[in-house]
């Protein structure tokens, strides 16, 4: 049996990269669209305040709500990033199985 650490590492990295390439665009798309919505909402709040339609206290409360919602979005981006990383790790671990079994010539793992 000849197992090459470099070959194994290459297979793992390729598998991990493949998963990240597949998943990352949807994470980025979500983050970008939510950032735009957040910016629009902030502009709305500022405009209402500038026009005198809402008091400072009301503006502060609306801004607090917006901060909470922006944080919720960032947490989702974090969660989706972790899920993508998880898939990449599991793909890399799966690649080890393939390489090892090929090297030994039978399903060792």
């Amino acid at each position, binding site marked *: 049996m000849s197992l090459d650490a470099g070959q194994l590492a290459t297979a793992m990295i390729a598998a991990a990269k493949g998963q990240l390439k597949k998943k990352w665009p949807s994470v980025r798309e979500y983050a970008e669209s939510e950032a735009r919505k957040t910016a629009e909402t902030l502009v*709305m709040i500022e405009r209402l305040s500038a026009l005198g339609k809402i*008091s400072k206290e009301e503006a502060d409360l609306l801004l607090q709500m917006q901060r909470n919602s922006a944080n919720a979005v960032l947490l989702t981006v974090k969660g989706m990033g972790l899920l*993508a990383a998880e898939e990449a790790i599991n793909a890399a*671990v799966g690649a*080890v199985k393939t390489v090892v079994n090929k090297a030994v010539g039978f399903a060792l793992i």
Partner: protein
Amino acid sequence: MGRMPAFNGDARSIKEGKKTMLKKPSAVLFAVLAVACIATAGCTVRLVSDYDPVTDSQLSDVYHATDALLTRMELLASEPTTARTACSPDQFAGDYQQIVSRLRLLGVRNAARDHNSITNEQLALLTNNIETLRKLQRVRYNQTQADTAGAANNGCLLTDELVPVRRTLDQTVTAMMKLELAKRDFRKGE
């Protein structure tokens, strides 16, 4: 292990040397650990909790209740003849109670799940948003003077004000649903 860069005693070459030493051994170590992991338990790494259809469904319930509350406020705001008493915060106590109790149920369920800190943090943010909305309603109701734009204040949240309110609540609930569904969709084929 790879050729080390020539050492000439400065901090930079020491750093370069360390980098080179660490590259290959960490890849080998990871590979060994991965083999051990698969050989012993066929393990799958989990960084985030599993998809929970009950949480998914309960989030929808929270959204329905929140949507009903906001729709009621929007109708009151759009009617010029709305009586001040109709917008008294007391009139909405039941609506808030329903939403908060659904959030508590979600909180208890999700606190018990492993690798679920993100969802738990999001629930705290959503709960805070509902409480802040309640405060906002009270603040508006207690303002008895006309706003500086000259419009009479009947104590109801304004139509314009309810737009960012709805957007932030929608965004918060959607963020939570998005993550919950990602837990299912990212792992398809497992």
